[in-house]
C-alpha cells in the first residue's frame, strides 16, 4: 500500500495498540485532536480514551508517568508534540528511564518509546526545528532510532514499542507528507541496531540518517557519472551498526558523514572517530562531516537553508572528497 511517512507512524501505533493491551499512547493533544500533525488521528476513537490519553503540557510529567507505568508492565508510547521539548523531560529520561535496568540489577525493564517530530527545513524557527539526538546517544541504557523512509518509520516504531528498553524515536517532520512509499500490507518489523545499505558504490561512502538520506541518494544518482557513491542509512544511532559502517569504509576508503543536527558534538563525530581509529589503514582521505552550522536553526527560509545541509552542500562535499 502507498503511505506517507506519518501514516506509517500512525499505522504502527494503531497496530500495536490493537495487538497488545498494555500499549498506551500519551501526549499533548494526541487524543481528541489526533496530534498536532495528526500522527494519532482516529486512535482515541478506536482504542478508547484510557489508552490514547491527552496529557497536560508537561513533558517531565509525560515521561515520568510513562516510566511508572512501564515499571508496572505497561508499554507506553510518549509523544513529544515537538521533539524540541524533550529537554523538559530530560531528567526523567537520562536519570530515571535509562538507569532503571542498571539500578535494579537487570530485574526490571523500562519499555517506553518517546517519539516526536524533529528536524528543520520547514521554517519552524528555533523551537520547532531541533535535532537533539546526540544528547541521548551519550546515555547508556537508551536506544535511539531515526527512520528516513515510511517502511522504516513503521517497522522501527513497532520494534521500539516491543523493545524492553527505553527507545527515543526521532521522526522527521520534513518527511511527514513529502514521502509516499509502497509498504507491505502484511505485518513486518525493522530491527533496531541494523543500518541499511541504500546504494552500493566503490569510490566513496556517505553515512547519513534521517532527512538527508534523500538528498544524499539524489546526489548519488545525479553524480553517478563522476563518482560511484555508497550510501549507508544508519537508521539506529544507538547502538550504531559498526559492522556495516566498517565494511563499507574498508571498501571505499573515503567517508563523508552527513546529518542535519549540528556539527559540534553530533553523532558524526563519534562515527568519524571510530572510523579513524579502526579503519585508519584503509582511509584514502580525511573523514569529512557535513552537518548544520553550529548555530540555532533560524526561521527565515534563506537563513535556514544557509545553516542546514542542502543538496548543493552535499554535492560540493562529495565532489571535494572524491577528488582528494
Amino acid at each position: 500500500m502507498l503511505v506517507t511517512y506519518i501514516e506509517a507512524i500512525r499505522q504502527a501505533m494503531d497496530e500495536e495498540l490493537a495487538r497488545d493491551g498494555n500499549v498506551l499512547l500519551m501526549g499533548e493533544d494526541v487524543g481528541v485532536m489526533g496530534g498536532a500533525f495528526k500522527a494519532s488521528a482516529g486512535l482515541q476513537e478506536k482504542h478508547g480514551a484510557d489508552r490514547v490519553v491527552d496529557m497536560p503540557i508537561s513533558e517531565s510529567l509525560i515521561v515520568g508517568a510513562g516510566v511508572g507505568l512501564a515499571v508496572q508492565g505497561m508499554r507506553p508510547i510518549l509523544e513529544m508534540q515537538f521533539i524540541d521539548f524533550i529537554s523538559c523531560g530530560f531528567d526523567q529520561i537520562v536519570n530515571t528511564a535509562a538507569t532503571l535496568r542498571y539500578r535494579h540489577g537487570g530485574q526490571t525493564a523500562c519499555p517506553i518509546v518517546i517519539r516526536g517530530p524533529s528536524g528543520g527545513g520547514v521554517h519552524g524557527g528555533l523551537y520547532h526545528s531541533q535535532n537533539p539526538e546526540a544528547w541521548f546517544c551519550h546515555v547508556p541504557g537508551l536506544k535511539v532510532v531515526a527512520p528516513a523512509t515510511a517502511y522504516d518509520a513503521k517497522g522501527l516504531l513497532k520494534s521500539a514499542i516491543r523493545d524492553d528498553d527505553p527507545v527515543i524515536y526521532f521522526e522527521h517532520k520534513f518527511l511527514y507528507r513529502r514521502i509516499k512509499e509502497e509498504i507491505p500490507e502484511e505485518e513486518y518489523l525493522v530491527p533496531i541496531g541494523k543500518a541499511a545499505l541504500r546504494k552500493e558504490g566503490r569510490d566513496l561512502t556517505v553515512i547519513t540518517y534521517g532527512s538527508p538520506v534523500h538528498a544524499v541518494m539524489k546526489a548519488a544518482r545525479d553524480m553517478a557519472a563522476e563518482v560511484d557513491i555508497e550510501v549507508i542509512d544508519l537508521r539506529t544511532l544507538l547502538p550504531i551498526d559498526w559492522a556495516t559502517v566498517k565494511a563499507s569504509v574498508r571498501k571505499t576508503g573515503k567517508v563523508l558523514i552527513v546529518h542535519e543536527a549540528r556539527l559540534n558534538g553530533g553523532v558524526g563525530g563519534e562515527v568519524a572517530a571510530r572510523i579513524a581509529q579502526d579503519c585508519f589503514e584503509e582511509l584514502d582521505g580525511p573523514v569529512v562531516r557535513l552537518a548544520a552550522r553550529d548555530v540555532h536553526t533560524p526561521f527565515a527560509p534563506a537563513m535556514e537553508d544557509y545553516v542546514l545541509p542542502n543538496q548543493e552542500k552535499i554535492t560540493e562535499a562529495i565532489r571535494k572528497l572524491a577528488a582528494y
Partner: protein
Amino acid sequence: MLIDVVMPQLGESVVEGVVVKWLVEVGELVAKDHPLLEISTDKVDAEIPSPSAGRIAQILVKPGETVPIQAVLAKIETDPAAARPAPEEAPKWDEETEGFPGHMARTSGPPIPAPPRVEPSAPAPSPPPATGRVRITPVVARMAAEHGLDLSKIPGTGIDGRVTRKDVEAHLASGGASSFAKATEGKPVPKAAAAPAPPSSKAAASRAPKVSPPPAAEGDQVVPWTPIRKRIAEHMVRSKTTSPHVHIFAEVDMHRVAGVRARAKKEGVNLTYLPFVIYAAAKALRETPIMNATVSGESTVLKKDIHIAVAVDTEKGLLVPVLRHTDRMSLKEISAAVDDFGARAKSGKISPDELSGGTFSITNPGIKGNLFGTPIINQPQVGILRLGQIVKRPVVIDVDGEDSIVIRPMMYLGCAYDHRVIDGVAGNGFLYRVREILEAGDFL
C-alpha cells in the same frame, strides 16, 4: 602584465582573513600555483597559490594584518620581458592608519568585528614540498608496503598531486609500469643503438637486474620487458635477495584425494588437485601461525586472516590472485574460486584488489610441472607451496601388519619458507601437516 593576487573567499561565511606569513619575496620568480602566502580565517587556514607564473612585483599586506575578501594582496608581473625586481616606489606601510595608502587602510575593512586571531600554535609551517616527496593517504601507504611499490614513480591525480588509492590500483592494473617500461612500449624490436637509457632512479636500478644493451647480432630478437614482466623480475630478485629460502619436500600419497575426485566426477563436478592442496594448506596454516605471516621491517606480522594467493599463468605473465578467508571456504567454494580466477585472469579481468593482501602462496605448474621444484617466496609473505607432478608409483604400505606393495598416485609437494622468521621445526611441521591432511582425505 601586472596581475593581482586577491584574497579568496574561503567558505560561504568567511568575509576576511589574517595574513600569517609570506612564503615568497618581492622579485622572486614563481610558477603557477606556487604557494605565495598563508592566511588564517575563522573557518580554515590555507595557502594562497599563485594565480599565474611570473615575478612577484609587490607585496601589499604585512603578516598579522586582517584583510577583507577580494582585497589585493600582491601583484605579479607575468610578462617575462617586463619582469624585473620590485619597483623602488613600492608603497610604504603607514603606521598611523595601519595600512598601505590607497590600498589597504585598515579602516576600509568590512563593518563587522574582526574574528578572533588564530594564534600560530603550531610550529613554523613546513617548507614547500621538496622534489620527490610524495603525498599519500594511509591506505596508499599500506598498499605500497604490501606491493613493494616506489610511490615516487606513481603519478598522483589527487588534490596537490596526492597519490590516491585509485592511482595505485591503476598502477597495479597496468602491471606497475615504470617510466622505463613505458618508454619501450610499442617498439617490439628496437635497434641496439636506439635502445633507451636505463631508468635514472637508483631505487629501481638496485632492485632490477642491470640493463645491458641488447645484442645486435643478425637474426636475434630483442623483446623489451612488458610492465608485468618487469614487475615479476623485480619481485623475484627482491625475494631471492631478501629471504634466505629453505626448500623442503614431502611425498604425498594422493589416492584418497583421487578417490574424492572420482566420486565428484560421477556427480558431474570436475575437481582438480589444486583445491585440495589449498584446502589442506589453509587448515595447516591455522595451526601454524608463523607460516601465515608477513615481514614488515624487523618485525613479523602474524596475520589474523588466512588469504591464500594462487599463481595463475596468463598470456601477459604470472598473476597471483588472492582467495580471501581461505580457511572459511569449503572445497567446492575453493574450486569454484580457482576456476573463476583462471577464467578471468586469461581475459584480463582480475581487479587489483584481488591481487593484494595475500598471506601465503601456492603455485601449481600443472600437468607438465615435472617432479618437483623450488618456488620463490611471494614477498612480503614467508612461505609458499608448489605442487609437483602426480605420478603413479609402487609404494610400500602397511596392510594388516604386513608390508604390501600397491600402486598409488604420488606427488612431491615442495615448500619454501623464509629462514629469517621460520626455523626448521615449524617449517617442516607445517609441510608434514599439509601432507597428513591430504592423505587423510577428509575435506568436509
